[in-house]
Structures are given as structure tokens and as C-alpha cells.
């Protein structure tokens, strides 16, 4: 009887609310957001991400194990712009966690301050493929947006943990200045190749291309979310030959069959280019994402002799 009583007390204590000023439990939908949250939060938070970096973030399965993560979260950081529309809403509904419901204090839409490209201004239809009505959600691939995401996250952390405000602000300033320095380096690396024409598989790289001066002339997908068709692939090959395009960038979660045959036909280099932290083993943080991608790109440019 006494043991049972102690057990009940222990269970109640275990399920009770965590101490108000403990570590913030942060769940991010992608590893990129988790990486930036880690930069801002340091040891004041714990971070987990739902999607892996080598996984297509549009098609994550709404596994019940994610419900358990969300149930305990103080903060949920989402990419937004309807990237997670196919899997996140049911997870949030079933999380039973009022802190992270959309609009609640713990819900962070990282896109709110970011510069978003490809916002459709007119009527859109699904004839255009799986377009995102709120703009291209792959906006984190621009260090300038990285800083804005960091600010959005730091503001939210500070609001939830006012005592740690100074820490978060200082870490944000540090993150931003390191990012500024790195961006200068990356821009210098990419400067000789300004205006380089490339093809990508999905529209994952518009922000990257804009920042680093690439010119994306076409996509392996005929429309967003629609797998390659023979006719489109032929057209693309002809266009690449006409414009002498020597680089094809493919996200790690797409099949390489079509890109490789395009590469054979055009002599272009096919790059498996991670758009996210965690996309390959070496990319463990937000800085290494750009380091890796830019090095990969420059090596391929040198190899292909493209200009």
C-alpha cells in the first residue's frame, strides 16, 4: 500500500509540468531549423528535429513516435509556407500540447521574417504541379535568411525565457557575425562563377542561386512534385546543350536515373547536393551546409570546365 502510494506520487511528479525555468525543449521540423535553434539556444535548450536532412521534407510520415516528441515540446519551430502541410497538422492536433498549437506562444514559423521567393501573385492551379501558394519554402539556403530565422527563434526563446534573454541575444549576435564572415568567404569563392547556368531537380535552390549568383535555367521535374517525363527530359537536354549547361544539382532523396542520363547526354556533372543540414554525414551544422555545397559545386565546375 505504501509502495503503491509512493509510485502514484512518483508518477504524478513525472507527468507534472517541468520546472518553469528548466531547459527549453525545442522540436524543429527540419534539421536546418534545429541547427539554427542550437546556435541560438546553446546549453539553455534541448533540440530535436522530426525530418532527417536526407529525407524529402514534403513527404514525412506522421509517425506516432513524433507525437510523443511534440507532446513534451515547449517550442515547435516550423519551416512554414505549407512545406509541412502533408504531415504536420495531424501531429500537432494529436500532440495534446496547447503550447505548440498554431498561434500559441510556442509555435514558431521561421519564415515570417525571411525573404521568400517565387510567391505566386496570380491565380494558381494544380496544373502547375504541387506549387506552394505562399512562396518557395526552401528559403533557408541563403545565409541572410539564416540570420532572419535566427532572429525569429531568438525572439521567441527570449519571450519564453526572459531570464535568459541576454544569453540568447548575445548568441544571436555571435551567430550573425560568424555568418557574415562566412558569407563573405562563400561569396568570394563563388564570385568567379557568377551567372553560371545550372539545372536542379526540384525547386529547392532558388534562394541559394540568388545569393551566390547561379542562373537556374530549368528543372528535371517538369512541374514541382511531378516526376520527370521523357518529353520534358529531351527538351531539357536540348536546352542544356543550347545554353552549354554543365551542372545538374540533385537533392539526395531523388532518384539519380534521369539526372544521370541527362549528364551522359550533355556531359554535365550530376551533383548530389544536400539542401539541408544532415543531408550527408559531413554536414552537421548550418555553416557546414554551405561549405559542403559550395565546395562540391566549385569542384564540379572545375571538372566540367563550365564557365
Amino acid at each position, binding site marked *: 500500500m505504501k509502495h503503491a502510494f509512493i509510485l502514484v506520487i512518483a508518477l504524478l511528479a*513525472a507527468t507534472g509540468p517541468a520546472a518553469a525555468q528548466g531547459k527549453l525543449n525545442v522540436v524543429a521540423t527540419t534539421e536546418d531549423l534545429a541547427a539554427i535553434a542550437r546556435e541560438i539556444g546553446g546549453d539553455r535548450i534541448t533540440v530535436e528535429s522530426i525530418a*532527417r536532412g536526407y*529525407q*524529402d521534407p514534403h*513527404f514525412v*510520415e506522421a*509517425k*506516432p*513516435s513524433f*507525437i*510523443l516528441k511534440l*507532446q513534451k515540446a515547449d517550442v515547435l519551430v516550423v519551416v512554414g509556407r*505549407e512545406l509541412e*502541410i*502533408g*504531415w504536420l*497538422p*495531424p501531429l*500537432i*492536433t*494529436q*500532440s*495534446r*500540447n*496547447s503550447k505548440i*498549437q*498554431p*498561434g*500559441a506562444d510556442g509555435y514558431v514559423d521561421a519564415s515570417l*521574417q*525571411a*525573404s*521568400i*521567393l*517565387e*510567391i*505566386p*501573385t*496570380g*491565380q*494558381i492551379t*494544380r*496544373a*502547375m*504541379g*504541387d506549387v506552394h501558394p505562399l*512562396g518557395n519554402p526552401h528559403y533557408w539556403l541563403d545565409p541572410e535568411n539564416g540570420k*532572419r530565422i535566427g532572429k525569429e527563434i531568438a525572439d521567441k526563446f527570449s519571450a519564453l525565457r526572459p531570464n535568459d534573454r541576454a544569453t540568447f541575444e548575445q548568441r544571436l549576435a555571435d551567430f550573425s557575425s560568424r555568418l557574415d564572415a562566412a558569407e563573405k568567404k562563400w561569396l568570394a569563392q563563388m564570385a568567379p562563377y557568377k551567372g553560371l547556368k545550372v539545372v536542379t531537380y526540384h*525547386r529547392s535552390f532558388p534562394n541559394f542561386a540568388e545569393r551566390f549568383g547561379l542562373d*537556374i*535555367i*530549368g528543372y528535371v521535374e*517538369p*512541374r514541382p*512534385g*511531378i*516526376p520527370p517525363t521523357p518529353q520534358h527530359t529531351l527538351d531539357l537536354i536540348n536546352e542544356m546543350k543550347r545554353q552549354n549547361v554543365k551542372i545538374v544539382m540533385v537533392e539526395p*532523396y*531523388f*532518384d539519380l536515373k534521369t539526372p544521370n542520363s541527362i549528364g551522359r547526354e550533355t556531359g554535365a556533372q550530376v551533383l548530389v547536393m544536400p539542401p539541408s543540414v544532415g543531408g550527408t554525414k559531413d554536414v552537421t551544422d548550418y555553416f557546414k551546409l554551405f561549405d559542403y555545397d559550395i565546395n562540391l559545386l566549385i569542384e564540379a565546375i572545375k571538372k566540367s570546365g563550365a564557365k
Partner: protein
Amino acid sequence: MRVTRFVCAATTAAMLLGGSSASAQETPQALRQEIDQLRRDFEALKQQYGDRLTALEVKLAAAEGGQVTQPAPGAPPTAAPPAGQPPGQQPPGQQPTAQVPPGAEGAGGPTGALPVYGAAAGGSKVFNPDIAVIGDFLGASGHNTVNPQPSLEMHESEASFQAVVDPYARADFFISFGESGVDLEEGYLTLTSLPGGLLTKVGKMRSAFGKVNTLHNHVLPWTDRPVVINNLVGGEDGISDAGISVARLIPNPWLFLEATGQIFRGDSSDVFKANRRDEVSYVGHVRGYQDITESTNIDLGFSYARGHNDAELGHDDFFGVFTTNLYGVDATLRWRPLQRSIYHSFVGRGEWIVSRRDQLSGLQRANGFYVSGDYQFGRRWFTGVRIDRSGRATDGSLIDTGGAATLTYWPSEFSQVRGEYRRINYALGETANELLFQFQFSIGAHGAHPF
């Protein structure tokens, strides 16, 4: 003196008259001028406000999207109607246009300008629910005399309306338009933030009995439902009723464990029938889920349902009380390699259901199962098989057996074509060999993918 007075009066009168006639000549002119001036002022003000509105909208767009689209000087953007025009109305004969999103060209997307429909009135729509319509077209050929299906049928058009109600709840409505009428398939409120981790639903809903019973037609891996579901759990309509559902996660260090308790009015197709207010039905479900690896996971469930059935004749105990008790076990094994998740996957499912039904002839025990496997072998291609065997609820010794094989093609995430070969050996000796096919298509909001 008299003369003087007359002159005086005449002069005064003349002055008065003259004065009044002079002012009569001046007034309309002044008024007109004043009106013109006012009109000019008003026009200027309108222009000013129009310009400010335009500027503000550009700013707003910039703040929201971080992308500034400067309007061409002098030409108001299509989003801002010309000053003085009621919002939502466009000048006749002038079709507003918008630019194709950058990048859409060259990818085979539409080129040039696209028409804008109702953009100016968009603000009033922001709180509308997400609306989608899913069409389910079925065809059948072959031989089936027991349960014949029409050759061609617009089986169901399901309209869904889903939105957040307030900070505490969301609402989901699914209205299905079949060939014989309209039915509220589901319509419920979900309270998302009750204390104690209780996820509560109130409304009409598909009950949590097993796996297939919870699924809408369009997310099934087949064109039909397994025989055991048709025989014991009410088939397509299933155990679906008005009631209250409460689900709680059971904290433990090992696995995801969820217990669901539901209470319903007690009327569910041919499974349950309530004659009195207190003849409610109950459904209980326990679900355990565990990731084995990042690509493989297993999902187990135990279900129980109890309610009164249609063998009960009256609403008193004279004829006796007739209940149906249902027990179910379900298991799902999923495999989906994360890095190639859009190309390959496998789902193995199975359910075993036992029915104990009181009726005039006594207690009827029946049981049945289905086992199925579905493999995705390409980004757009799926194939699967299913094995069926089940007794009938009213006579457990009558056993129907069968099987089915499917091939599914997805042109995109929003449409699907499926063919199914099905063979059923009915208990009374009939054999049905059928080729079924299905077109499914969805328009509107992007719904969540089922898991």
C-alpha cells in the same frame, strides 16, 4: 414729403430688388464653383488615398513576404482596385492579370500573364475553412450475383471542410454525396488542449474499432473493403455514429501507447441499433506503436465494441435484450526507407475480428480476418494482394472466402487510377470473379497524408 417718401420707398425697393436680382445672378455660379472645388478636392483626396493604399499594400507584401514588387508608376497594382470602385469589382472588359511566378516559365509551366479571379475580395476569405472535394468513380465487370455492383458508378463525392475553431479546438466535416443521397460521413469538434492530455472529439465520427473502420474510402489501398469488414463491422459505413471520444497517451518508457474510449448513441449501419435512449454503444481501442528502425515500424491495436443489435424487437425487456460484442486485433508493419521514401514502401496489414451476437436463435459466434500487403515499386506505382475469410454475423457457420490483387497508378499526389481483381467464394456456393476499377481525384486544399 409724400414725394420724398415715395422716392425713398422706390429707391429702397429698387435697391432691394436690384440687390436681390444681382445676388440671384451670382449664387448659382458660386455654388457651382464651390461644388467644382469640392469635387476637385474629393478627387485629389481619392487619388491620395488610392496612392497611399497602394504604397501600404506594397509595404505589407514586403513585410509579409520580404519580396517587394514595385508597382509600375502610374499603374495601380491589380490588388488595389481603382479608387472609388467597390472592392471585388473589376472594370468591365478589363481582365486583371498577374505574372507567372518566377521560375515557372522554362519548366514547362504556363507563360505570360495569368488571370486573377477574385483577388481583391480575398481578404474576406481568410477565415474560410480548407475545402476539398474527392471524387471516387467505380467500375465493375465480371460475375457476381450475390452482391452485384453497378457497371459504372460515381460512387462518392466527399467534400471536406476543415479549420481551427478557436485557440482550443478544431473542426472537421466530411460530407459524402453518393448516388442515393447525401450523408454526413463525419463531422466533429476536436478539443486539442484539454488538461490531462485528453484528446477529445465530439460529433459524428468513424469509431476507433480496428484500422479499416477508421479509414475513409479514398485512403484505402483497395477499391473495396475486406469481406470481414463487410460481414462483421458494417462495411463501408462501418461503426460510425454520433458520440464522444476521449483518447489519452499512456506514458511509459518503451513505446507509443494510446487508449481511446468512445460512447455512441448506438446506431451504426447494421451492426448496432438502439431502441431506447440508454442503449448506447461503447468502443474501446488500445494502440501500441514502435519504431524498429528509422524506416521500419510496427503498429498493434486491440479493439472492443458493444452495443444493442437489430434482433431486439421492442423497447422493453419482454422480448429480451440483444447485444453484439465485437473484439478485434489489428497489426500493421510499415517499411519506408527515408532517403528513397517517395519511391519505395511496403505496408503489411491484418485484422482479426470476432463477433458475438445475441439473436432469437441464440448466441451467434462468427469471426474473420484479412491479411494484405502493399508494395510501392516506383514513384507512381503500387501493387498489393489481400486474402479474405469471414463468417457472417448472423450465422457464423456461413463462411465467405476470397482474395484480391491490386495495381495502382498515381499520376500525381492528387489523382489515382486503380485496378483490382477480386474473387469471392460465397458460403452458399456462388463464386464471384470480378475486375473492379477506380478513378480517384481530389481538388482543393492539400489534405494531410494518412498514416
